[in-house]
Each structure stands twice: as C-alpha cells, then as structure tokens.
C-alpha cells in the first residue's frame, strides 16, 4: 500500500517535471501556470467555503490585495517576489481577519452580501486611489525573481519553465499546508461549524472565532496567488478585483468538489483551460460557460470529485472479486 502510494507520487512528480519539455515555452505552459496560481487561491477558498461553510463572495478582493501589495513593494522598494508574496499574503490575511472580525456576527445571506460590499469597496479604491494604484493604468513591469547561484550564474524566473516549476513548488507547499489544516482538529471544527453551528457551539466550539480563522486562511492564500500572478503577468490592474474573478474562484471550488482541497485544484485546472478552449466558439463562449455553470450546479453539485468517487464505487460494486462492498457516496 505504501509502495504503491510512493510509486504514484514519483510518477506524478516526473510527469509534472516533464510537462514544460513536452509543451514547450508557449501558450499551453502559460495556461498551466495560470491554473497553478488559481489552484492555490481555489484551495484557500475551499477552506472558507467548503470546510467552514462561509460563502464568501468577495474573494477577488484578497487576491487583488496580494497582487497590489507585491507589485507596489517591488516597484517602489525593489523587494523581490519572495518578500512581496509573504507581505501580500499577510496583508490579505489581515484584511480578511479584520473584515471577518467586523462582520462574522452574522452568517448566511447577510454575511454573503457584506463580502460583496467589501469587495466592491476595495475595487473602487483600486480604481480611484490613483496616487497609489494608478487606477486603470495599472502597475506594469513587475518582474519575476532572480536567484543568484553561489557557484556563479543565476536562475531567472522570467523563463516560463522556471516559473512553472516555481509556481508548482509553491502550490505544493501551500496545498500541503491546507491539506494538513483540513485534516486537523481545526479542520474538524470548521466542518462542525458548517454542518450545524448550534450543535458545534454546544460542544464548546467557538463558532465565531473559527469562522474568522477559516476566513483569514482563505484570504491569506488568495494573497499568495495574487502575488504570483503579479510577478508572472507583470501587470496588475483594478480588474483583478472584479466580481468575475470571485465567480470563477467559486466555480472552481464548487465544481471541483467542496471540502476536499484536491477538488478545487482540479476545478482550477479545468476552469482555467475551459474558457480558453472555448475561444473557438467566440461570441458563444460565455453563453456556453454560463450554461455549464448552471447545469453543473444543478446536477453535479458535489463536484467532479464526486463523479469519480461514484464511478469508482460503482466499478467496485461491479467487480465480484473485491471483498467489502463500499456503500459510501
């Protein structure tokens, strides 16, 4: 069992390492990098929405805060991505913490709308505080980091291959952390909060405190994604705080499979590639996208992970050689 798991991870690692060479330094690798960045954001949102059940409709704001922070630190103080990313994540997390602290006395729709309101306010600030953010002109020229090697030479992450590996490495670390959180007592508390808040409170789980924590974690990792985005695309603008980004993040989480961490990662992959592949449909692209969203949410609301799980269970049931019959959904 352990051996086959190890074999899987080795195979997966080799597969990922080989990708840039198979795909070349082009468009497809670009999409994979974007997918990786969004995967980090989606996984973080999963903690907030999937585990703790807090429907945050303002996630783009945290993504944007991470991106702008990292960009401004680079452009004004020359701070490379490493510092920018941590700062961006901390600021985004802090914003989430403050908002959560302020607003998490209420839950349900009221919480939802207040996250919308917050994100819109942030977007207006990004658009209008032109002294700092330059408004619509945006912040161009944010460079990826360069590492000087001790034996001479350097790795410049402007190369897509290098940035891809970097992004994947960061994603693995972040998702690993989130996985740990999800499978820890903290994660259990989040689930308890989501499932039945009153019951959770009655066994001593401080609902509000945990809600704030889940919200902050989501914001933190959105900030990391934002910073990566800034240093990869080299351009940050107020559009990053558009509701459309929040929507796509949510779509990734929900269609991938809420409360699984891995599901949203898959969701990120699919929903980064899908709109791009729908380019052939031009004017109909977004109609198809909207339609897919409606259908998936109505009929596949447990996400794609659910399909696989059900498929696997069905296969197991069909096979006469398996011992125990699985009955879980």
């Amino acid at each position, binding site marked *: 069992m352990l051996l086959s798991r190890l074999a899987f991870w080795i195979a997966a690692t080799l597969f990922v390492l080989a990708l840039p060479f198979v795909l070349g330094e082009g468009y497809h690798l*670009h999409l994979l990098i974007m997918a990786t960045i969004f995967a980090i954001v989606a996984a973080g949102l999963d903690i907030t929405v999937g585990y703790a059940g807090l429907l945050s409709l303002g996630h783009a704001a945290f993504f944007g805060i991470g991106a702008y922070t990292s960009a401004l630190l680079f452009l004004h103080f020359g701070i490379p991505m490493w510092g920018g990313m941590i700062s961006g994540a901390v600021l985004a997390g802090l914003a989430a913490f403050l908002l959560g602290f302020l607003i998490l006395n209420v839950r349900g729709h009221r919480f939802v709308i207040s996250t919308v309101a917050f994100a819109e306010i942030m977007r207006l600030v990004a658009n209008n505080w032109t002294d700092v953010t330059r408004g*619509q002109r*945006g912040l161009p020229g944010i460079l990826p980091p360069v590492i000087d090697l001790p034996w001479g030479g350097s790795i410049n992450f402007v190369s897509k291959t290098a940035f891809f590996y970097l992004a994947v490495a960061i994603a693995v670390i972040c998702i690993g952390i989130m996985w740990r959180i999800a499978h820890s007592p903290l994660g259990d508390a989040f689930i308890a909060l989501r499932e039945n808040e009153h019951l959770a409170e009655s066994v001593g789980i401080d609902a509000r405190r945990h809600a704030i924590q889940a919200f902050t974690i989501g914001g933190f990792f959105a900030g990391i994604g934002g910073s990566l985005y800034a240093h990869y*695309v080299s*351009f940050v603008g107020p*559009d990053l705080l558009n509701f459309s980004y929040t929507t796509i993040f949510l779509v990734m989480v929900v269609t991938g499979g809420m409360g699984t961490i891995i599901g949203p990662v898959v969701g990120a992959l699919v929903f980064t590639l899908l709109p791009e592949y729908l*380019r052939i449909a031009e004017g109909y692209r977004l109609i198809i996208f909207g339609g897919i969203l409606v259908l998936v949410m109505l009929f596949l609301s447990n996400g794609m992970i659910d399909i696989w799980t059900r498929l696997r269970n069905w296969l197991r049931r069909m096979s006469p050689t398996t011992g125990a019959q699985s009955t879980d959904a």
Partner: protein
Amino acid sequence: MRAKSLVFGTLLVATMLMPHAFAHADDLLVGAVYPITGPVAYDGQTEWNGAKLAVEEVNAKGGVFGKTLKLDVQDGACNPAQSVSAAEKLIAQTKVASLLGAFCSSSTGAVMEVAKKYGIPLVTGVSTAQDLTKQGNKWFFRATDTSALLGQAFAPAIAKLGAKRVAFLVVNDDWGRAVASSYGEALKKQGSEIVDTEIFSRDDTDLFPYITKIKAQKPDVVISAANTQLAANVTKQLRQLGVTATLMGEGAFTSESYLKLVGSLGKDVIGLAEYVPAIDNAANKAFVKSYKEHYNEEPSKFSAAAYQAVHILADAINRARSTDPEEIRQALLKTDYNGLTGNFKFASNGQAYNFDVYMAKNTDSGPAIVGKGSIPNSE
C-alpha cells in the same frame, strides 16, 4: 483518488496538444487582440471591421513582399488577463510576426509586457494612455494621440471659441482624468478658468447629480470625455437639465451611433476627434465608401484607427522584407506613412506624430470640420 488525478491530467494534456491551425507557407501572419466581447464589444467589432478592410486592400495590391497578409484576431475583451492570454496564444502558438491591439489602455499595458518578453512589435491605433510610451518599452508603437497631445493641439482653437469658464464632465478612468487635466492645463495657459470638474463612473446612467453641480458654476463650455452611450447620456442630460453651454467632447461625440441615440440634441455639439468620416481627402473618401459597402454603416473612429494601424504595420513589414521582429521594429521607427488623417511618423519612444486631428461640429447635414490641429512631436 490518485489514479483519477493521473487519468484526468493525462487527458487534459492530450487535449492541450490540439492540432495547430496550419497556415500556408506564403502567408504572413499578424495577430490582433481586439475586444470582441465585453464592455466595449461594439467598438471592438467596428475596429475589427476596419482592420479586415485594410487587410483586403493590402492583399489586393500584392500582399506584403509577395505574401498574403493574414490577420488572426483573438478576443481580449478589454480585460488585461484575457488580453495577455490572447497575446500568448498569438505569439507562442500561432507565431505571428507582429501584434495589434489591445484597445483598452490597461489591456494594452498588459500586452506590452508580453510583447517585451517575446520581443515582438506591438502597434496600437486606439490606446491613448499617456503612460504607455513612458515605460521605455521599445517594442510598443502608438499610431494615435494621447489626451495631452490633443489638449495642446486643440487649446488655441477652443479658446478662440470663447471658453472663459470651462467645466469638465468626464468618465472615471485614466482617459477621462487625462482629458480633464491636460485640457485644463492647456486652457489655463490660454486664460480660461476651470470652474468645475465632475467625474462619473462608467456604470452611471443618471448624471443629473453631477450636472447639477456643473450648472451651479455657470460654465460657457463643457468638455467631456465619453464613448457612445455615455456620450449620449451626457448630451441628453446636459440639455435636459437646462445647461446651454457649448458641449465639446473627446470620444464618440460625432459618431453615427451617437447621433442616432441623441437625435436633435446633438446639434452644435463639437467632437474633438482623431477621425470623422467627413474628412475631405481622396484616401478617406475611398475608405468611407468601401466601408459603407461592406458593412452598411459609416466607419467609426476605431475602424479608421485599426485600418491605419494595419496599413502602417504592413508598410513597415514590406520595407523590412522580413518577418524578423527586430527588423520590423526598425522599419516601424522609419515610418513615413500617409493615411486617412495625414502623415504618420514615429518618435523614438514609439509615439506617432505629425498627423492631423479634427474639431467637428454636428450640423443638420452631419459633422462638419470646424478646426484642425496637428500632433506635435513630443520629444
């Protein structure tokens, strides 16, 4: 769970290696990032129409050093991230020799970074954000003006019309603010007083609150910056609130779609434009005729902008006689092209100069040119 990820992943990689669109050996591929969908979709489509016309003409005259010019257009939707993806696709996958686009200044700004990364020339006919030519990006060429340059070009003529008290009613973005600040400065030098500046959001339909403030200051000229729908709103509501000042505007104040929306209220409004269909020279007359035949409406300024940009690019590639990006870039720098609105040359920072800009007043028989300016060399 693990097997699933692998299978899924492999499937995805397989679909990613989709067959590339194959082009003939004697095609010269140029890419364009236009906003086909999104908030400025209508303008983006007119832009595309103008580009298509130019491509046809180039090929009718023998193409670009013998090769057929092919324009691959991808949707940027006036969104920076999408425009970047579109640019990546065009450069890395379709392997275009050059890029055009991306209409909205923030999208163009993002695409500029991609152009720089790959070392591919990018020509825009539309984006007027001053900032773009100040970044030292040698791959970027702007075949149009900026509001600062327009302000300098027009200020004397505006002052002559009697602009003692000037108010601004502009849309809340870089362009709108640039109009307010650059015209404001230029007009102050001519002795005008700026009595009020109101900035409205693109989503605002009801401008009465802003106009009420302007009215209180009793301006004799109101200068605006807005496109089609917003321009129509500005015009209509200004008059409905009883403001009788002369209205001048950058943007869509003389376009066909604007006039359709405002009807008689558009009379005597003055457009400060890079292009009006009424421009009286042989090249433009032919262009307008051809455009009308193809698309059943008059060309918009974006149609003309794309048309000229494509021609300028094709002209440069023709002179370079090569698809090498650096050679095309060098050829662009040496541009001396006569288009619909005069002569185009590029300064070393990529900013075009020497071409004409027009003040057009809406009369009963359509927009009539009442003034002209020439874009100075900014260096």
